[in-house]
């Protein structure tokens, strides 16, 4: 595996399989791994706040017996004094063994990886990449469905700007017989590079529809994202379409018994809270899988083997 993980594309299908196998084992035998990172330090360099992601990394390291340090926003880092990303990670490389970086500027973790002597994990850079979210999504699906192939995957909401959607599509096309259904308003359909360069070029079956109700009964998996009011050109369209992209009990009654609902969180109103108690709603379990796959990633990047 590469020394640093900047994009989901940095991980091959085989490496991904190995990571998920390791995460499985950690979930099954956590005590085996409880001291695997004794004496090691993870630095969380969050130039913009993302409490959930940062805590997930910190929990992962703490459960491996390691320690963590870092900052949670740019105000508490040296960036406000004008220090460059390159200089920040050069310094951090002396203190920590591995770091997770979140930054509002796209490409900042790539700059960090070029100058750090320790592994860098991209914990989200602007609207660009968020590889551990993709790992989390994939590991959740594999754990709860038992497979990543042979399924119909629905993506609903903002498919134009949602980076987690694009990354997950790119990852899932590597598996056999995965079909896609894209449910979104016309203004927020998948970008051309996904449609033309990936789906059409690779001959992947997909359809684009505007109503969730029409396709729900056929889905094995539904990945929900938020449709933001400001993405619409006019209020009329927003009012007309907004309810169509909110998942509620009534819509869930159309779905199959074993359909899974995922969401990258935070959720606003696109999934009604009445759906939370439905066993098919797995978005809170997703968070737990996210921690275990991060544990597997930290161990792998630090090249620590546990027998």
């Amino acid at each position, binding site marked *: 595996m590469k020394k640093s993980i900047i994009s989901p594309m940095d991980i091959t299908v085989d490496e991904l399989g190995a990571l998920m196998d390791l995460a499985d084992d950690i979930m099954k035998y956590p005590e085996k791994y409880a001291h695997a990172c004794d004496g090691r330090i993870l630095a969380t360099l969050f130039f913009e706040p993302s409490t959930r992601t940062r805590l997930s990394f910190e929990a992962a390291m703490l459960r491996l017996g390691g320690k963590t340090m870092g900052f949670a926003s740019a105000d508490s880092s040296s960036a406000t004094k004008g220090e*460059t*990303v*390159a200089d920040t990670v050069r310094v951090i490389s002396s203190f920590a063994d591995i770091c997770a970086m979140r*930054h*509002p*500027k*796209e*490409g*900042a973790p*790539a*700059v960090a990886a070029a100058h750090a002597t320790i592994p860098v994990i991209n914990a989200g*850079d*602007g*609207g*660009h990449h968020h590889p551990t979210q993709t790992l989390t999504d994939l590991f959740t699906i594999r754990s709860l469905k038992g497979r990543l192939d042979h399924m119909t995957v629905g993506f609903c909401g903002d498919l134009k700007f949602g980076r987690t959607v694009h990354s997950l599509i790119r990852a899932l096309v590597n598996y056999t017989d995965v079909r896609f259904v894209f449910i979104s308003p016309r203004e927020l359909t998948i970008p051309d590079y996904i449609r033309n360069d990936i789906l059409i070029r690779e001959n992947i079956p997909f359809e684009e529809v505007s109503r969730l109700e029409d396709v729900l009964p056929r889905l094995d998996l539904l990945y929900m994202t938020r449709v933001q009011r400001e993405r619409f050109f006019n209020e009329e369209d927003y009012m007309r379409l907004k309810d169509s992209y909110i998942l509620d009990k009534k819509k869930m009654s159309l779905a199959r018994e074993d359909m899974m609902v995922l969401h990258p969180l935070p959720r606003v109103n696109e999934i009604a809270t009445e759906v939370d108690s439905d066993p098919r709603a797995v978005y809170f379990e997703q968070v737990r899988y996210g921690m275990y796959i991060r544990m597997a990633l930290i161990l792998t990047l630090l090249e620590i083997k546990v027998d």
Partner: protein
Amino acid sequence: MSEEIKTNGYKLYVGKIEEGFVIDHIHAGRGMKIYRDLGLDRLDCSVAIILNASSKKMGKKDMIKVECPIDQFDMDFFGFLDPSATVDVIKDGEIISKPKLKLPEKLVNVVRCHNPRCITSGEAQLDQVFILTDPLRGTYRCKYCETAYKNED
């Protein structure tokens, strides 16, 4: 001896080059941009720019003729500036080579990333690095944010 080029009925005469190169088959309208991008405006040598010359192949085309020592240019850049262009390299008044233009794998500080969210927009000391990601379509992407560079004006 002079070479004759027809443009809209006028005739342009350009003296013969002893040493230098001729960039031909430039898309009409891009000649001046290439002139600037290659930094020819900063050189102390004779340059002839012919705009909107008629061409059997292209309808209209631009050409640039430069008289200068030929070893000071990186021929790779011509292909990046205009993939349709051809280059004749001239020494002692003869064409000594017609290098096949190929796109360079990597461009350092040639073009700038226009993504306002890119780290290069916040940290000016970073090199502007673009990688050739699709040689067939000539697509370059920023090494950091992966935004594609559009090779147009």
